[in-house]
């Protein structure tokens, strides 16, 4: 029991492996960020423009992946490689779901547009 706990406290992976796994997933997270940013700019330059609330809502999916990546990294980096990768992948799924939530909201409401 105590052996298991102490081994969980220490990083079990070499730094290069942590960096490789995190880096590969960071690219995917960044892809979502860029998509959200492009969508934000697109809507801001649209015919109707964005309200202040619209800016706030459409900036959320830009910030959210950063927060989730940080959280997933903190949870996973001291674990085994497969667990680390699975945590990061789950975070990516959460980010994708959030992005679709925002997109569905942006498509369903008129509150974001027309400043």
């Amino acid at each position, binding site marked *: 029991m105590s052996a298991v706990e102490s081994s969980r406290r220490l990083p079990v992976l070499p730094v290069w492996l942590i960096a490789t796994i995190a880096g590969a997933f960071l690219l995917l997270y960044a892809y979502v960020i860029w*998509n959200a940013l492009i969508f934000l700019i697109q809507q801001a330059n649209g015919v109707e423009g964005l309200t202040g609330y619209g800016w706030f809502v459409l900036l959320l999916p830009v910030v959210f992946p950063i927060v989730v990546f940080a959280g997933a990294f903190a949870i996973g980096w001291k674990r085994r490689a497969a667990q680390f990768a699975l945590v990061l992948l789950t975070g990516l799924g959460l980010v994708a*779901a959030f992005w679709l939530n925002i997109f569905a909201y942006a498509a369903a409401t008129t509150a974001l547009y027309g400043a």
Partner: protein
Amino acid sequence: MGGTRSTLNDVTPRPDDDALTWDGDDDPTLDVGANARAGDDALDEGTDAASPASDASRPAVSLPAGYTAVGKGSESLAARPGGASADAESAERVADADAEGEPHGMGNAALVGIGIFAGVYLLLTLGWILGAARLQLVAQLFLAPVAFQITLWLAVLALPLWFATVFWLTSGKRSWLRFTLLAAGALLLIPWPFILAGVFR
């Protein structure tokens, strides 16, 4: 301590308990550590062989002073001298097993809970598939098709991934942690595209 808890229902196995047991419940591979050990002595004293699991799953009980057990299965109670101390002892053993927090298999309640969560997750995943597919019409006006496809399938897979991750990372931990994380996942990953499509159209 245990004496105040026990009622007549606890000490007299009633025939309708049989309705709550299945054939094969006494399979030794189904033993879940502490409970099985606590029930062992009851079994040794010749309890009804048809429903040993119902006895094993129940903490060892004793009669309060002045009561006499009668009927089917009562001999195991009558034969135990100083029931209160034996009860305290076995309760201690159970408490010890809990305090160690070692992975000793899942209890029935935990299994049922996991099953319920699995069903909820399945329904929510279905909601994601339907909701996200409905978004496709609007999305092709604004997003790159490839980006949308990737995002869609990641969102659909989010719930199964969350379930698997929680299951793997909390194996051997306390079960309340597992259930809290599963509940959090279900709340975080409510399929809003599906719900919004129903509200606004």
